[in-house]
């Protein structure tokens, strides 16, 4: 069945809540309203207000409560309306969700999912366009997952809900209704920590995640005489280094495309891992196509800021010409 990412995520939630009665959905507006992006639509009608919990507007409250619920045997899927609001709950994720297993030697764990739309390009308000996945990825104990398409979203969310550790699940809001693709009706999982080679190629490896993949596809289609291998990272942490290194062996050239600011980001980590483990296969320095290290501009200027296919093409040209 063809569906968009919102419907695919919604279907995964329906199926996991049916399969496992400990799965509960919580957040502001997730019940009656079905979530600001309608991702949780229809759940409260089916599962009732005890399992689809409309909470007060309280980010730390939502996450801290979810942690407690997870410690007492539930699997909460908590929603932040936007990634830019999740900073209010960052303390709970860092100081407790991420550490409870280690702190108690595995006696208590926090099998929760923190879902949130991230990224920009939809002419949104201030604080509604952030892409700060590196913040979460640097915290030991958390997993960070970013789907790039409806089919990926359904399988990855299913795995995230079943995962015994806390997972930050980032939904590229720009892609929510952009792509429709065939999504299997039945439940399926996609392993966390495994990248996928989305397109095979010989000349250059282009690595991206989330909302960057459709842009990378557009860019590489425009390239003449350059065969690009596209890697959809899918899981930021843990990261599938092996798939990247295999590709580097073949192509010798790498472009990392990230929506986030350039410095201290996931692209830098990928670049460092290639340097540590595969430098002799490189024909050119790893190129990062990224946003500048500035506050996300308001909509009037956002086109200067965001990644587009042309910028990706220039990045590829740079490593090819080196």
């Amino acid at each position, binding site marked *: 069945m063809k569906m968009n990412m919102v419907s695919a995520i919604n279907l995964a939630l329906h199926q996991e809540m049916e399969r496992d009665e400990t799965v*509960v959905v919580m957040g502001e507006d997730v019940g009656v309203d079905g979530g600001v992006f309608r991702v949780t639509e229809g759940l409260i009608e089916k599962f009732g207000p*005890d*399992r689809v*919990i409309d*909470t*007060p507007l*309280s980010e*730390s*409250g939502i*996450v*801290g*409560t*979810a*942690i*407690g*619920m*997870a*410690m*007492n*045997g*539930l699997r*909460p899927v908590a929603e932040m309306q936007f990634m830019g609001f999740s900073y209010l709950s960052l*303390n*709970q994720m860092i*100081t*407790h969700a991420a550490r*409870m*297993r*280690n*702190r*108690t*030697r*595995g*006696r*208590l*764990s926090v099998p929760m999912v923190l879902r949130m739309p991230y990224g920009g390009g939809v002419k949104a308000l201030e604080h509604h366009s952030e892409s700060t996945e590196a913040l979460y990825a640097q915290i*030991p*104990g958390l*997993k960070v997952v970013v789907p790039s398409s409806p089919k990926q979203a359904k399988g990855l969310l299913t795995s995230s809900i079943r*995962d*015994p*550790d806390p997972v930050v699940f980032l939904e590229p809001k720009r892609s929510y209704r952009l792509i429709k693709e065939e999504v299997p009706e039945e439940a399926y999982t996609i392993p966390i*920590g495994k990248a996928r080679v989305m397109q095979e190629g010989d000349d250059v490896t282009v690595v991206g995640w989330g909302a960057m993949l459709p842009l990378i596809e557009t860019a590489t289609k425009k390239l003449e005489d350059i065969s690009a291998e596209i890697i959809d990272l899918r899981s930021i942490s*843990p*990261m599938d*280094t*092996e798939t990247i290194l295999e590709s580097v062996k073949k192509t010798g050239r790498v472009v990392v495309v990230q929506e986030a600011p350039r410095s201290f980001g996931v692209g830098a980590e990928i670049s460092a891992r290639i340097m540590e483990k595969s430098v002799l296969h490189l024909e050119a320095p790893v190129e990062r196509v990224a946003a500048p290290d500035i506050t996300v501009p308001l909509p009037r200027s956002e086109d200067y800021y965001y990644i587009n296919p042309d910028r990706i093409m220039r990045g590829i040209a740079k490593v090819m010409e080196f």
Partner: protein
Amino acid sequence: MLIDDYDPLKGKRLQILKETGTVIKTLEPQLEEDVLLKAYRTMVLTRAADDKAVKLQRQGRLGAYPPGLGQEASQLGPAMALDKNDWLIWAFREMGALIWKGVPLWRQFLYWMGNEEGNNFPDGIRVTPTSVPVGSQILHAVGISYASKIKKEGSVALVYFGDGGSSEGDFHEGLNMAGVLNTPTVFVCQNNQYAISMRRAKQTASQTIAQKALAYGFEGIQVDGNDLLALYAATKEAVDRARNGEGPTLIESFTYRRGDHTTSDDASRYRPEKEVTEWEKRDPILRFRKYLEKKKLWDDEKEKKLLDEIQDEVERCVAKAEAYHKPSIEDIFKHTYAEMPPELKDQMDRLQQREGSE
């Protein structure tokens, strides 16, 4: 009912056991003799273990430690009102409550000696680990008790925090959430008058902490925090109400920390000695001992025997904690995730090679 009668807005504070050891008969909780004796023993053990921990810290055998001198009743009273299946969520100055709940004392020493294994409690003990970030554990109690409500398991969650914790955002988000979701949660503020060096008056302009409950739509009560019987009675009522679906309660235990905040600070810098000696007169253990003596349950001979016994017990626990094996490199890696990701395995292997261990 105590919680209805002792309105914090009217300046009422519950006290059942007076400093002389006499009780208000109409309010006296009907506890079995063996429970009273066990409670006394637990407070005496807590004080001895606490004193030992401070000494060990001074000798470099234990890390920074938060002494609980003077708060023994405040720690223990609320915990006594819990059933086995109820959860206890503590901050970091509740050794007595943990002992009551069955957390082995030697594990507590082990934790403060710097080993996470100290938080590895035996199965079936529903006690969370210590929470160092102030006030953040309050929300866990709300979530734990909300899960209990959803699962209809009938358990209650009781959470401790301090007067400083009541200034944190998570205190307000937690109480608000509990009120809205009507969770079976009991909030216990150990108001020991200081958050490190900052007086209670610098934490809030409210007359009491108990009255804050009213803003969140439930009841609060201020209790003499050096009165074990009052703490037990108020908490028992709050626990019963929570179990009956009547929602959360905030209990303010009005007490005093006679020691330092932790072994890293020196309380004499910020508070007058006279204040400390005033509070010594309200000592919770001495008061409870007088009560037991009046009931003919206690005498000097029993006291001496108990002190000897407890001395031995503390020494045995310290020895057991000190003899516990040093963590291996694998120990520090293996609980980061349920399953170790390849990159982490790689980092562990490299560290093991460097350190020359297996």
